[in-house]
């Protein structure tokens, strides 16, 4: 186990990407823009020796969608790269080519929030069932189930 990453180290690696802040001793958060997220992930992998993706957290904050890429490595510090995506065009470049496990997480986020990961090789459904209507994303704050829509399971007529 090597030493925790220092804020200056992260600031140096993330120059031109965003200004990191230490949330806790072992958590450093780097806010950035969707256009720079891929470069940020790449630098975390190479310059900060992150080799494990903990989670890509996805949040609908009511105004926009947020994605927080949590990465860690032998230093056991979680580097959180945070971006915001506009509601009307929720698109961001995929990180699955840099981080293979991100592929399955991105499919899940696409399923639940409708965020499009541009360049993802196989962005198909994984969590919701095959009968779920297209273009309905249940984790969006403004989503309401429509009583007349069939969301899967057993159809009423069949019972």
């Amino acid at each position, binding site marked *: *186990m090597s030493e925790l990453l220092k804020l200056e180290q992260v600031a140096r690696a993330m120059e031109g990407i965003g200004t990191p802040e230490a*949330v806790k001793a*072992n*958590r450093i958060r780097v806010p950035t823009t969707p256009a720079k997220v891929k470069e940020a992930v790449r630098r975390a992998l190479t310059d900060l020796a992150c*080799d*494990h*993706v*903990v*989670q890509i*957290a*996805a*949040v*609908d*904050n009511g105004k926009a969608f947020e994605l*927080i890429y*949590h990465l*860690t490595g032998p230093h*056991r510090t*979680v580097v*959180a790269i945070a971006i915001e995506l506009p509601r009307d065009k929720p698109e961001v470049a995929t990180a699955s080519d840099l*981080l*293979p*496990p991100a*592929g*399955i*997480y991105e499919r*899940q986020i696409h399923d*639940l929030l409708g965020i499009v990961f541009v360049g993802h090789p196989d962005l198909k*459904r*994984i*969590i*919701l*069932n*095959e009968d779920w209507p297209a273009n309905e994303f*249940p*984790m969006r704050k403004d989503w309401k189930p429509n009583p007349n829509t069939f969301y899967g399971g057993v159809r009423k007529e069949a019972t």
Partner: protein
Amino acid sequence: MAEVVVPIGPHHPALKEPVNFKVVADGETIVRLELDVSYNHRGIEKAAEQRDFVRVVPLLERVCGICSHSHTTVFVKGIEEAMKLQLPPRAQYIRTIVAELERMHSHFLWLGVAAHEIGFNTLFMWTWRDREAVQDMLEEMTGNRVNYGINEVGGVRRDLTTDQIQAALKRLPHLEDRIAKYVDMVNHEQTMMIRFRGVGKLSRVDALKLGAVGPTARASGVDYDIRKDDPYIAYADVPWKVVTDTHGDVYGRTLVRIGELQESLQIVRHCLENLPAGPIKVTSPRAAPKGEVLSRYEAPRGELVHFIRTNNTDKVERLDIRTPTLANWTSVAVSLVHQNLADIPVVVAAIDPCLSCTSRITIVNERGRKTGELTWDELSAHGRAFYRNGRRA
């Protein structure tokens, strides 16, 4: 021979939830694997947004039947971090005892399932009998065998009496003997060595690249364990070590889990013997201040993550759960490539998937243009016959 797609699932009696695997096979050899876990989405993340912190804990306890304590602990410790609560040490120790007993019963269960998949049903019966002893301990302490209902925001709901502690300590030597027996068996028993060695190989580089977690990663020499990396509840106070192995196959994953059984037992013993006196909970405020917490936990199957957003109310704004099985999935899909069809049960079981499985397999015979079904038992029998006839590739 041409490639054929073998769909497995979504129903299988051996595991808990439904999943569908599409296995692309060339003869007996696996070429590719695809996964569909969409059969049992219950919308728990959405439901969690509608409930206050008192009512959401029992809901999260039901995310998983085996890791029930993991899901509540990771959540309440996240909320406590957001509320900046200092918990009494007694509460933390009780949580640790339940957490390690949960790991023990989960690993015993896994060892039994893995033994069953290779047709070694004696071991399956033995480990599940020993698991009963662990479940009895949990029942004596918490009142429940599965969903313990011990956690709440601010502490634990039940205290341990001196009698309960003594009764639990008395049960440990027997379990210790049993675990020592399994350590011996895994090193000498031919059935385990033949069927586990070299199966589902995952190198250290691949384990890291593919994001494997828990015993799956540790069996490939990756020493990530959240209990050490980001210590929570009482782990910083307890002497224990991270168990790793370098085999990188199902055999290594077995060694890691048996090693963890030994470690868990010592953690339970240490916590029972050194249980600090004092209160078991603190009063928590109704609402949590606006904040963002990434709560990490080493569940029996690996790193479990709850990402929590709070917004000055008594409900979470967002709860994003990342379970260890989802993290391990990418690595299974890779470690099965170039393996035998007969090894699917044991390689899939080796990550201890907390999803589900299969009651039948559709066998597509391209030449005969016939479609037939195979039950899980028949597939298991096929696996056993395949090895008995010495046709191992």
